[in-house]
Each structure stands twice: as structure tokens, then as C-alpha cells.
């Protein structure tokens, strides 16, 4: 158990030291604030109040479609392909800790920072929304919190799939390129083959809309959650096997 704890703590520390991580956190916080500032500069009318109250949900769309996926792809490429290429993956594997635990700690840190980005974005967007729309924005806090919380699941699934790519390719830059191509292709897939969208993880990035208001029927939520969890299990298992077989 100590090996897993030590490995997770080390990964968390190393990731926080990267400028990219701090940069992503800064964007997650600054973006809703800038949006609120822009809305505040507009003439006072009904639209400002509506947009201000909706700021957390607008921010969430940006976070789940662009910022968090980009962070997950860049970080997964660095954690697996990048560390294998620069020899630092070896440093972790030469310690008394199994490869399965090293993998678990890397997935933990990816998920942890994805959750932290969502949390930072929610806090900033909620505060900024209140600044623009006043007390009206407070009504939607519980609703937006629920939306942010459920958004973590598709982000974890995306992180696991990005990790798989990171384990297959040989360099961080190559990994990032492959991931961006796959992400763009998966984003376009529902437009080209609508019936395939149900199988695309990317199509679930905004599944929080299913939970908004009265929400989608329970059966639909369970089916969507089941597909995401199944993706997570398959990608995690494949990742463990790939890292275990990796020859350094």
C-alpha cells in the first residue's frame, strides 16, 4: 500500500511543478472572470442577467469540450510517452512498487487534476455569475454543482483513453498529435454517422445536459453511465496490461 501512496504523492507533486498544469488552472479560473467582466461592460438588460446566471454552465461547456480534454491529452502524453522517452518512467519502475500501482497512481493524478480543474472552474464561474447576475445566480448553484460533478466521469474515461495512446506511441509530441486527431475525428463522427455517436466517448463530454432540470429518463442516464463506466474499465485494464508488458 505504501508503494501506491508514495507513487501517487510523487506523481501529484511532479505534475504540480509543471507550468502547463498551473497554466490550465489559471485559464479555468480566469475565463469565467473575463466573461463576467465582459458581461458587466455590456448595457444592463435582461440578457446580461440570463447570461450571468448561466455562466457556470457556459464555462462547463468550455471546460468539458476544450480545456480539460486538452489538459488530459497533454498530461497523458507526458506521463507515459514523454517519461518513457526521457528515461524517467524507469525511475519509478526501479522502486519497490508494482507496475499496476504505478499505473494506478498516474491515472489517479490525471483524474485528480481533471476534478481540480472542474472545481476551480465551478467556483470561479459561480462567483463571477453572482457578480454579474446578483442573487438570481444563487438559485442555480445546486444544479450547476451537479452538472460539474457528473462531468468528471466522461473526463476520466477520456483520460484513460488518452493514457492508452500515451502507452502505445513513443514520444509525447507524437502522442499529442495522435490524440488530437482521434479527438477531432471522434467529435466529427456524430455528424457523419449519427448512430455511431452513442459509442463515442467524446459525445458524452457534455452529458451533464442530461442531468439538467428534470433530467433525462433514468434508463437513459443508466445506459449512458454504463457505457462510460465500461469504457473506463476496458481502458484501465488495457493500460495495466500495456504498461506491464512495456520493455524499457
Amino acid at each position, binding site marked *: 500500500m505504501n508503494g501506491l501512496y508514495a507513487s501517487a504523492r510523487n506523481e501529484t507533486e*511532479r505534475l504540480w511543478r509543471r507550468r502547463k498544469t498551473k497554466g490550465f488552472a489559471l485559464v479555468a479560473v480566469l475565463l469565467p472572470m473575463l466573461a463576467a467582466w465582459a458581461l458587466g461592460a455590456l448595457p444592463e438588460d435582461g440578457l446580461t442577467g440570463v447570461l450571468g446566471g448561466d455562466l457556470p454552465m457556459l464555462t462547463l461547456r468550455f471546460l468539458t469540450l476544450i480545456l480539460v480534454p486538452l489538459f488530459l491529452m497533454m498530461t497523458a502524453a507526458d506521463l507515459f510517452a514523454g517519461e518513457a522517452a526521457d528515461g524517467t518512467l524507469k*525511475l519509478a*519502475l526501479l522502486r*519497490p512498487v508494482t507496475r499496476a500501482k504505478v499505473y494506478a497512481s498516474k491515472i489517479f493524478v490525471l483524474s485528480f487534476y481533471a476534478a481540480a480543474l472542474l472545481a476551480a472552474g465551478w467556483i470561479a464561474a459561480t462567483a463571477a455569475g453572482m457578480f454579474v447576475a446578483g442573487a438570481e445566480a444563487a438559485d442555480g448553484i445546486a444544479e450547476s454543482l451537479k452538472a460539474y460533478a457528473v462531468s468528471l466521469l466522461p473526463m476520466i474515461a477520456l483520460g484513460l483513453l488518452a493514457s492508452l495512446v500515451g502507452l502505445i506511441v513513443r514520444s509525447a509530441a507524437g502522442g499529442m498529435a495522435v490524440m488530437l486527431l482521434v479527438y477531432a475525428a471522434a467529435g466529427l463522427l456524430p455528424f457523419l454517422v449519427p448512430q455511431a455517436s452513442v459509442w463515442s466517448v467524446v459525445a458524452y463530454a457534455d452529458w451533464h445536459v442530461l442531468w439538467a432540470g428534470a433530467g433525462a429518463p433514468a434508463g437513459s442516464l443508466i445506459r449512458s453511465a454504463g457505457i462510460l463506466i465500461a469504457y473506463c474499465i476496458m481502458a484501465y485494464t488495457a493500460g495495466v496490461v500495456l504498461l506491464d508488458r512495456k520493455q524499457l
Partner: protein
Amino acid sequence: METVLKVTDVAKRYKNSRGVQDVSFEVAAGEVFGLIGPNGAGKTTLLKLISGLARPDRGRIELFGHDLATRFEQAMAGVGCIIETADVYAKMTAYGQLRQAARFYPRLPAARIDRVLEQVGLAAYRHERAGGFSLGMKQRLALASALLSGPKLVLLDEPTNGLDVEGMAELRTAICRLADEEGVAFLVSSHLVHDLGLIASRVGIMSEGRMIRTEAVDEGLWGESSLEQYTMAQIRGEREVRFG
């Protein structure tokens, strides 16, 4: 003497047909075992297999009586390594890297980090980022990381790479002292046969993936010739037997 490493009929073949074949040997506590042989002989592959970085196609590796394949954490608990290159986290300080390594050994006192940094001569650079270190300093940091946990077996692959003359002499002294006084076993691979001859109690000569001979250094088996000449003669002899 207790056997700390037991390698039995280990084989590993890469796609380029290189690797190791049917290698068996043991290393006892306090022994300095030198691996010598030409480039491509399989020394680094063997060290990778023993440290778990690569998996053997067949055979068994035991560290402190634990099978590496099934009890990895227990097997590696008493092992320190430098394999192939002295890799470091470029953006972390020397102290930060060792603090990360120390987390895997919960009973390690915090003062141990400072002690090993002093031992390898990096105490003055403890708060500098390793990315700016010279090759020799990186090698010293890797050595500090390998010795940090107070291992009972240390695997060193070309440990003198990048070290200056003083560093090489200090490394030899440290290896002999740890082996004699603390019973630490060393498995050292180096192309500097003369250097290995100064510290090894036994050597294993490798050629084309095979361990063709293991000899005790102090038996004077090579008579008037040097270890280098003896090694070359053994390798030539092996090639003649195998290829005519």
C-alpha cells in the same frame, strides 16, 4: 554467505536477435560481482532483467529469496539501481528527487537524504535543479538515489560514465567500503575491465548473450596476463569453439 541474487537459466531474445541465453549465476552478500564483455554482449539486458525493467522469456530471477516475477515489491525492497543511463527529473532539485525516492521506504530517516548527498559530493548543489547538472553530476545523483535506501544489493550499469578521475576513484572506494563494512553486494557492469579488476571479487565474462565464464578475481587464474587480456582470450576462445 547468504545468496542475495540467484539467476537461473534466464533467456531473453529481442526482435533484433540480441539478448541473453541460458544465463545462470549467483551473487552473495558482500560480494562485488563484475560483468564484463564487449559491446552487445548482453550486460545491460541482463541488468534490465534483474531489475525488472524487462521480462525474461524463460528462467527465474530471485532477489533475497523472492521470485522477481511474482513478488516484485519484496524482491526489490533491498535493491538500488543505475541502469543504462543516469536519468533524472530535470525540473526537480537534487534534494527533491531523493525525497521522492525516499517515500518508497517509510522507515528511512529524513537525514539520510543529506547524508547520501554528502557521500556523493552533491551537498552544495542540493537545491539546484538536476536539469542543469553535468553528466558526471547526474551520475553522482543517480548513485545517491541508488544508495539512498541502504540497499543490500546494488546494480550498477556503467557507473563511471561521465565521472572524472576523482569521481571514479571515490566510487571504487565507496563500493569496496560498503561491501567490506556493511555487507552490501554489488553487480557492476563496465567496459572498463581494469577498473572492475580493482574492485570485483568475482567476474562474469559475457559474450554474445552468454555468460561464458565466472571467475574469482583473487585466484590469479590469469597468471601473468591482465584481466583485460584474460577476458579477450576467453571471448576469442568461445568464438572459436562456437563458430570454428
